[in-house]
């Protein structure tokens, strides 16, 4: 008997898509002087909306507005009052959650199940969490009188557009800074709805300024002499450029960069649970996650059986319309990203790894990639070293825990890792040996505003979430200085 799912699409009209979106500067929605961005629906390849983009003059205007708001209003406001604005924003996101989820899915291509159940509620929770810190900064562990830095320049990626906006804006505001933020070129829509929520919350003009644009706008923003703090989430290559260009300035920098997370499965692991965790680890958000578990390390004795089961489970993932509530794997965010994924898969094959691709049928249009698992990979292959940022898993085997740790740590990155074993001491011991900022024991891809997230090594520095996330936006130097 063959069973089929009936289509269960979410109503696209819920997203209240506009034909055109404007920048948000100094409390007003205005047209920028840059050339308009066209935002594409990755599930169809069709135009969604045009978005006004920033020029260098607009960056000056936004930074000046943020400085004025910082000097005249925000830095003078008691933390308890700042916090109440953040609580309002959290409520506003929750109230417009369904609209935001649909819009995010249209603009990004990720399944509605993810935007509805993860991206949007977690974004609201992030504001709610940091709202509560605004009047408790002196309890955060950075001295009795922690001070804001001033104007924060923030650049965020396209993989979690609204959530990354929340991760950046909420702690910055709670700590008393004002913000100029640039969303990714391919996903500017949800943050501009967030701008409406911010405006409706009555946040003083200039406290948050949103400048859509491409990489040149981001580069000009982080290098603007009027900003005191730079926070960037994106590729390691761009992060390195920013660190270099900020050398010699007094701007405080935090970087959340790429990853090549190892998911380590020991022979004694609960296999069904491990398979669910590995599938979540690499196929969540089409694998376009910096902390994705993109390297599977399996203990040799169970490798053959385990891989067969993993492939069978992966075959059942439904790839297709992101608005369909049954869809497991949605669209890749852009044609360029899809081309990069395909290029790296081709490199995996040509370097001698064995490629297995899910037989799932792909939609005829839009940017889709089928879940892919490479076996017989080695640590030196590009698919094992480079961040693919797609639904592609490379598999390596190991024999001993020491070998597993060595192979997991054999990367310049160090963002995430997973450990699957029923033996508690081994789970804790391996977690301690991994050079990764987040380790999931017998689970994967769990996030919470109360838990610090961030990387070792070339995955960046600084943390987001928890009290550590506040440190990124506070003056935490407490060393005496010679006059």
């Amino acid at each position, binding site marked *: 008997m063959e069973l089929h799912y009936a289509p269960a699409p979410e109503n696209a009209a819920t997203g209240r898509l506009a034909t055109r979106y404007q920048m948000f500067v100094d409390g007003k929605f205005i047209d920028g002087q840059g050339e308009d961005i066209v935002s594409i629906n990755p599930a169809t390849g069709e135009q969604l909306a045009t978005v006004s983009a920033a020029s260098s003059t607009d960056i000056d205007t936004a930074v000046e507005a943020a400085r004025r708001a910082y000097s005249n209003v925000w830095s003078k406001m008691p933390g308890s009052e700042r916090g109440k604005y953040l609580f309002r924003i959290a409520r506003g996101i929750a109230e417009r959650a369904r609209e935001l989820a649909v819009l995010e899915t249209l603009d990004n291509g990720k399944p509605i199940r993810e935007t509805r159940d993860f991206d949007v509620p977690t974004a609201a929770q992030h504001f709610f969490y940091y709202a509560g810190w605004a009047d408790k900064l002196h309890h955060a*562990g950075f001295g009795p009188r922690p001070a804001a830095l001033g104007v924060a320049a923030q650049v965020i990626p396209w993989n979690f557009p609204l959530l990354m906006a929340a991760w950046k804006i909420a702690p910055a505001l709670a700590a008393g800074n004002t913000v100029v933020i640039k969303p990714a070129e391919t996903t500017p829509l949800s943050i501009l709805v967030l701008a409406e929520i911010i405006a409706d919350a009555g946040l003083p003009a200039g406290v948050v300024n949103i400048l859509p644009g491409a990489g040149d706008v981001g580069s000009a923003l982080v290098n603007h002499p009027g900003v005191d703090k730079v926070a960037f989430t994106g590729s390691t290559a761009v992060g*390195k450029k920013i660190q270099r260009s900020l050398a*010699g300035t007094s701007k405080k920098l935090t970087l959340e960069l790429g990853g090549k997370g190892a998911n380590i499965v020991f022979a004694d692991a609960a296999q069904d649970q491990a398979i669910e965790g590995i599938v979540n680890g690499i196929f969540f958000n089409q694998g376009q996650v910096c902390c994705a578990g993109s390297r599977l390390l399996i203990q040799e004795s169970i490798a053959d059986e385990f891989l067969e089961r993993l492939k069978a489970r992966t075959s059942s993932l439904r790839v297709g319309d992101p608005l369909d509530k049954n869809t497991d794997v949605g669209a890749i965010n852009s044609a360029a990203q899809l081309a990069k994924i395909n290029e790296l898969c081709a490199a995996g094959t040509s370097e001698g790894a064995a490629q297995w691709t899910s037989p799932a049928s792909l939609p005829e249009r839009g940017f889709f990639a089928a879940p892919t698992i490479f076996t017989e990979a080695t640590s030196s292959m590009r698919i094992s070293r480079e961040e693919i940022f797609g639904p592609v898993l490379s598999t390596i085997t190991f024999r001993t825990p020491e070998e597993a740790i060595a192979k997991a740590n054999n990367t310049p990155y160090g963002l995430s890792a997973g450990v699957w074993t029923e033996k508690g001491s081994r789970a804790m011991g391996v977690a301690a040996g991994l050079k990764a*900022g987040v380790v999931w024991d017998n*689970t994967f891809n769990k996030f*919470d505003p109360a*838990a610090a997230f961030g990387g070792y090594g070339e995955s960046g520095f600084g943390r987001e979430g928890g009290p550590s996330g506040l440190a990124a936006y506070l003056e935490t*130097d407490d*060393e005496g200085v010679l006059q």
Partner: protein
Amino acid sequence: VTRITVPKTYKLYIGGAFPRSESGRTYQVADSKGNFVANAALASRKDGRDAVTSARKGHASWANATPYNRGQVIYRIAEMLEGRREDFSAALIRTTGISKAGAEEEIDAAIDRLVHYAGWTDKLAAVFGGANPVSGPYFSYSAPEPTGVVAAIAPADTPLLGLVAAIAPIICSGNSVVLVADKDTPNIAILFAETLATSDLPNGVVNILTGRAAEIMPYLASHADVNALDLSAASPELRTSMTEAASGTVKRVYSPRGEPNLRAAPGTARIRAFMEIKTIWHPVGAVSLAARGSY
């Protein structure tokens, strides 16, 4: 007949040993009046490489030592320094021209600073980490870990206190360090290395190179096996160029505004600069068994 004294040959301190520079180069150390004191090793890039190799090994054993043990070892350095106070007093007076009282004051401060950091080792995780109250059936906690290998420049003023103020906060959390000594007082740095060598500190935890920071640091700043830089004692120009070099491997850089006042009570910025926060998640079984989460 006056007895001829036996002067010391000053060498480098790498991996617990005192090798000459592989380059064979030396330079002359003068006292405050310009008179010859000793020849010091002029470290090369290859010495820098050897020091990083040693530091990586030292970090592995030091990070695995218990916090109690690390605290005891750093306290032991303070004990050894107290025992060699006359050596340091004489060396400081001769090399820097400082008064006897001034030298004693600096030695007191250096010993007290070591004791301060000895007491930090087993409190870092409690102060900078903790349980995360996550909204789900998971036990989640965040705790600090050492960043790894740190390359540092020693402050020029107060040479003994400067060494301690730079090294102790780096190593207290389990990092190892490759320190480029102040060029004018390498004899103080190597005298301190002798103190370290008799303090139960595992080999390679502290490595000291004497010579020119401007020659050695660029190599360390771009070395892929160095995780962080302490540039607090570097000139503004060196801070800029070293941060640029560090960006190639996304190193952590400690470069606070202004010139640190090492005599002031230390805060925690230096400790925090060289720690990573690691978050670990684990399902909470009882709730999982109640079917609210399967993994």
